[in-house]
């Protein structure tokens, strides 16, 4: 670590060079725009912009990629907050309080909280990375198939019990998400639930599930329920009141400090676990914050903590993901895999020796991450004002625009009309399910986590010839499984208590 701190000066000089700042600025702008578009998450954005790095030096290329990655996570929260259309899977949780704040007329405030939370998440996790990257990497090494399976079950226990009005409906939605993830080729070489349809051979794409479950029902709602809605014009006094309410005040910031502190650590820790990803980070952070916050019972109704928790966590995951990627050469997410591929193509070999042999390169990445987040803060504060105007578009006009955008975005994935049709069918069913309080978010999150859980369950069974007891009794695994059980029991008890109170 002392070597790295000694490399700070030349690294700083590299980052503040006008060309480097231009690269970072361009990466941030592209990342925000692409992250905001349905169909373009961080992985797709990086894949799309990979050719631009061919002529860049390794340090510029990685700074460009890291800027895009961070900005895409923030960019995805803009449509999630404004029109309930997440740009990336991690924003499935952002929708809960983010969109609720927009419905209360607080879109501007929500965007500012999302931005500041994202920037703080990036900076805090970078500092943690600088201080403890090699120790954190050792923790990541302890996570084998049993631990990953247990983490997946923990995630499912959160999903099932904390979303929706009843755990039964929550777990039902979770099961639907897990089932959708099994469609297509399995890792054992067989085909499952394809019914001889060619478009199902590769499974149901994530974009189809995200759009179908989260965005399409909202588009249907805007088109059907608000076909003739005429918003009353806002008078001058109400407009001034809204302007005041949309300001982020010092009491708001003071109230958010504990949330930011807790959830940035959660996001960084989740990020270092290979395969977990920003959606798991956002989910765990939201759950924990709901438990710890004084206003936990108001989560989902549009409160600041409910938005700040997933937002700071999913940006903390970015730096956390770099830990196993750079220290061990193990990509922590799809986006990290692309980043790893880019580094190898530039002749940079990730691994423990990278820190001792190229300390200036590593410090350049860290300082570049911090600089990128500060640039994103400046861009976002200016942009938030304009983005918030989207919330003022009359709902009857917004409906067709949202629907065409999500259909084009889904089609853009693989130019397949069948994907658009699937997303619309899922959307129509989800529109009906929402009326019955069957929550949609668990479907998306379970869909993301299903392959992680199945893959690690299968690995554990194969490694131990069908005997899971050895795997499931490891200390970290037992701890996480106990947390999963406690979460499920606590959630069911809380739901029963709420039901009795309602009947009483």
């Amino acid at each position, binding site marked *: 670590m002392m070597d790295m701190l000694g490399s700070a000066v030349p690294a700083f000089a590299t980052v503040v060079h006008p060309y480097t700042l231009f690269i970072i600025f361009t990466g941030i702008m592209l990342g925000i725009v692409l992250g905001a578009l349905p169909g*373009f998450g961080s992985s797709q954005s990086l894949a799309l912009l990979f050719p631009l790095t061919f002529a860049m030096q390794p340090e510029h290329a990685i700074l460009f990629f890291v800027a895009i990655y961070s900005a895409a996570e923030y960019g995805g929260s803009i449509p999630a907050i404004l029109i309930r259309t997440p740009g990336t899977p991690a924003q499935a949780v952002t929708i809960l309080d983010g969109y609720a704040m927009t419905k209360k007329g607080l879109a501007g405030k929500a965007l500012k909280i999302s931005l500041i939370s994202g920037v703080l998440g990036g900076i805090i996790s970078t500092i943690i990375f600088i201080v403890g990257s090699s120790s954190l990497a050792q923790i990541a090494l302890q996570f084998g198939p049993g631990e990953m399976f247990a983490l997946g079950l923990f995630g499912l226990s959160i999903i099932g019990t904390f979303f929706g009005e009843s755990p*039964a409906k929550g777990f039902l939605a979770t099961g639907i998400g897990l089932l959708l993830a099994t469609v297509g080729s399995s890792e054992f070489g067989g085909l499952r639930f394809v019914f001889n349809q060619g478009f199902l051979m590769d499974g149901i794409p994530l974009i189809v599930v995200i759009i179908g479950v989260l965005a399409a029902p909202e588009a249907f709602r805007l*088109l059907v329920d608000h076909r003739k809605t005429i918003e009353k014009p806002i008078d001058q006094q109400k407009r001034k009141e809204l302007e005041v309410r949309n300001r982020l005040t010092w009491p708001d910031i003071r109230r958010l400090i504990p949330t930011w502190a807790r959830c940035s650590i959660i996001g960084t820790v989740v990020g270092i676990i290979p395969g977990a990803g920003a959606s798991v980070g956002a989910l765990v952070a939201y759950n924990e914050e709901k438990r710890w916050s004084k206003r936990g019972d108001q989560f989902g109704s549009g409160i600041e903590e409910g938005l700040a928790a997933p937002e700071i966590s999913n940006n903390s995951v970015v730096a956390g993901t770099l830990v196993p990627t750079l220290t061990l050469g193990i990509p922590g997410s799809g986006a990290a895999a692309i980043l790893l591929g880019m580094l190898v193509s530039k002749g940079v070999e990730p691994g423990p020796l990278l820190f001792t042999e190229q300390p200036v390169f590593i410090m350049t990445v860290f300082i570049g991450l911090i600089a990128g987040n500060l640039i994103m803060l400046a861009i976002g504060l200016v942009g938030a004002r304009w983005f918030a105007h989207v919330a003022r578009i009359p709902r009857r006009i917004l409906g067709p625009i949202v629907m*065409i955008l999500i259909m084009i975005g889904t089609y853009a994935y693989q130019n397949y009309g069948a994907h658009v*049709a699937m997303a*619309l069918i899922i959307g129509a069913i989800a529109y009906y399910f929402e009326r019955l309080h*069957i929550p949609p978010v668990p479907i998306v999150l379970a869909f993301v986590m299903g392959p992680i859980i199945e893959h690690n369950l299968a690995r554990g069974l194969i490694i131990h010839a069908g005997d899971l007891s050895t795997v499931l009794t490891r200390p970290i695994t037992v701890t996480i499984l106990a947390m999963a059980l406690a979460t499920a029991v606590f959630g069911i008890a809380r739901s029963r208590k709420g039901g009795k109170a309602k009947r009483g």
Partner: protein
Amino acid sequence: MADGEESGKARQILVSTGDLIAVGGVLAVAFALVVRTFSFAPPMLPGYPGDDLFPRLILGLIILCGAPLFARRLSERRAQARRDRTGDDETFDIDVGGFLITAAIVFSFPFLLPVIGFEIATVAFLTVLFTTRLHGPVTAEVVTPAIIRAAVLKSLVISVITMLVLYSVFVILLKVSMPVMFLPKYIQF
């Protein structure tokens, strides 16, 4: 945000009825898929996982959660049928006709896209939807051919502009391959 008035021929449906239909449907699909799993290839070695393990675990979870919920709703419905409806039973509104018409328009887009091209499909889709939305509610007495012409023209202009923006972003900037018919002849980089 100020709230406006909503109108439409919404139908009131009991949540318990809706739950029975939804959960019953999910359970029926789950049971059918359990049967389907018996046609999957067996695992390579005894004791090893195969294609069927994880799907059966998930279908078991769905049946475990869905069956008690279905049974509870069924007994609630029977209790509701035995007593006079007091109006306290939870209901939800759904505009079935409006939804079906909207769904028909929306579902036509992915099918028309490769046939008539991105430009015409997008403009047609948006024009149809905007025409009935730009002016808000109008009564039969107020609707005249002149109003209809103005609404269609305004919708057409907005739709063309929206289509051009989408073309610029997705086709030109992001190089997404769309079934375009004639725009590349006039606009390209």
